[in-house]
């Protein structure tokens, strides 16, 4: 049980490429922290730095009050679950889990107790004699988790552990990982590019981009109040609609231009915009009906029928807007619809997208 703190952490590769450009955050004891970001944003590198598989070229990583920069992975008291599971192919499931304990010189009976206990928790007791190649993807995943659990480490590190599973299993394992972590109360850091996994698992969500942290916080808070346009479009599916405003005038002086954001589900198909809200005329280009809801891909009309925003927020250039409505609604392709959004559901960002402006 420990908290993990990163202080001004940097990583520069020998070639001069700066992968991590100064990261600070802290994961409290027993919390589940998710690092999320597009591929190449440095989230895996950061996790591997916590694990000790990558050197730290600047700043400190602190696990349980001890700076671990120079400490070998085995001595950091962490356990890691890899994306491809990295099970030892020639060892049985039992030995895969026991290997790390044996290397530590733990007495046999205790190893056995721990492995049996982990196997019971993960329901892989019947598989202990099998080799990894005789297991399905989900089972391998469980063994990889088992190998982490038996160590009883201070911190679990997960490197996209579910991305090799099929969609259905992924959801099941996601729930299971969350339950397991709640039960063991072990501090965890989890890397994923899947924003749904990130939202559902995290106590603390760290959104990364280009080697920097874009936003840290409670997942719902991040969803409701994204700090930048990057976060706004990365968290939430379908992504937030972002429209440049040539003159943000109507929406409080932001010093000229800005970017207006509306989540697809916040758009209502009404004729009259609510006071202070936004109204758009859309031509339906495509719809996707997924059952419970319908996604409408509309294009804002270009001329003649100029977009109207009741609170005069300046001009909106043409572009695509995604609207999420209940599944029963299904406008025809080419139909013109009027989309509105109340003022309190609008997000405004500075023109470079780096800053949120409160409306």
């Amino acid at each position, binding site marked *: 049980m420990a908290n993990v703190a990163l202080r001004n952490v940097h990583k520069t590769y020998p070639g001069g490429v700066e992968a991590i450009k100064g990261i600070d955050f802290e994961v409290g004891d027993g919390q589940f922290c998710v690092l999320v970001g597009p591929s190449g944003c440095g989230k895996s590198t950061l996790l*591997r730095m916590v*694990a*000790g*598989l990558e050197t730290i070229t600047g700043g400190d990583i602190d696990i349980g009050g001890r700076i671990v920069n120079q400490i*070998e*992975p*085995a*001595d950091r008291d*962490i*356990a*890691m679950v*890899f*994306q*491809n*599971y*990295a*099970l*030892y*192919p*020639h060892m049985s499931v039992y030995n895969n889990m026991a*290997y*790390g304990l044996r*290397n*530590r010189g733990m007495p046999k009976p205790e190893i056995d107790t721990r492995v049996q206990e982990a196997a019971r928790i993960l329901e892989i007791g019947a598989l202990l004699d099998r080799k990894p190649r005789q297991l399905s993807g989900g089972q391998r995943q469980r063994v990889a988790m088992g*190998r982490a659990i038996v160590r009883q480490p201070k911190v679990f590190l997960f490197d996209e552990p579910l991305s090799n599973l099929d969609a259905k299993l992924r959801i099941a394992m996601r729930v299971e990982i969350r339950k397991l972590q709640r039960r063991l109360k072990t501090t965890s850091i989890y890397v994923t590019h899947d924003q749904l996994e990130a939202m559902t698992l995290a106590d603390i969500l760290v959104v990364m981009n280009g080697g920097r942290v874009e936003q840290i916080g409670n997942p719902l808070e991040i969803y409701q109040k994204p700090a930048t346009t990057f976060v706004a479009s990365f968290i939430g599916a379908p992504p937030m609609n972002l429209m440049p405003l040539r003159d943000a005038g109507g929406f409080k002086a932001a010093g000229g231009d800005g970017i207006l954001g509306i989540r697809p589900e916040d758009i209502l198909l009404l004729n009259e915009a609510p006071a202070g809200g936004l109204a758009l005329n859309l031509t339906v280009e495509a719809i996707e009906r997924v059952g419970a809801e319908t996604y409408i891909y509309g294009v804002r009309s270009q001329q003649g029928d100029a977009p109207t925003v009741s609170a005069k927020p300046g001009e909106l250039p043409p572009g695509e807007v995604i609207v999420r409505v209940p599944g029963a609604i299904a406008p025809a392709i080419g139909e013109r619809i009027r989309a509105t959004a109340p003022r309190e559901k609008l997000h405004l960002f500075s023109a470079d997208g780096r800053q949120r402006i409160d409306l």
Partner: protein
Amino acid sequence: MVEHRPLNDIIAYAILTLGVFIVAFPVYLALIASTHDAATVISGNMPLLPGSHTLENYYRAVFVGGSRTSREPVGHMLFNSFVSALGIAMGKIFISILSAYAVVYFRFPFRKAAFWIIFVTLMLPVEVRIYPTYKVVSDLHMLDTYAGLILPLVASATGTLLFRQFFMTVPDELLEASRIDGAGPFRFFKDTLLPLSMTTIAALFVIQFIYGWNQYLWPLLITTQDSMQTIVTGIKKMLTTTDELAEWQLAMATAVLAMVPPVAVVVFMQRLFVRGLVETEK
């Protein structure tokens, strides 16, 4: 898919059968010759069916040696060959797996250079470096010793390359998982890399055992005592007689015996051997 026509099949089989016949017939002749007495073999009319002197010929070849030229019995030569082939095969595997491990997994100064130097030795087979090698071996007083037969042939670029290629296919995550599991470089090698390399080791063993067994020039140069010669050089010496008839039936029996161990190694290790060369999925 190639079109199937009976005529094509017949032609293909005929050519293949002819090929097999051409390769196998001399071997068959050796086998036949080893079952007749000296007079029959020498007469010039080589029979195509086995004769009645099989046991006698093989007994003499293995335990007694030739009567007219006082040569070592084949039993001892087989032993010499076996020791040196085994020594060469195992030595090569030992050295090349360690050097490949170093080249692939460790970052040290001049790593690339080290690899290229190993690679370049492919261009220097024993025959090319035979004089300096002989000089070194003789200065070290290793003439007529097993060490002299084995050591100069132990370094192997082929083996290093084969292991290197294999190690590169082992996922990095295994090394990382080992590090987290507290396994140092030696443990990782012993517990993970070595068991995974078993098929590659088997393949290399087959190749190098036969390579060692078939060595001719080197043993011929450095062994002067009959008690140290290998079977491959021994056959030749059996036929070198000054004023008497060569005992062809014994030479043929020796040749047949010389073929047995490599064939046995291939037959028994074939399954592993093939897997080692074709297996890519780990």
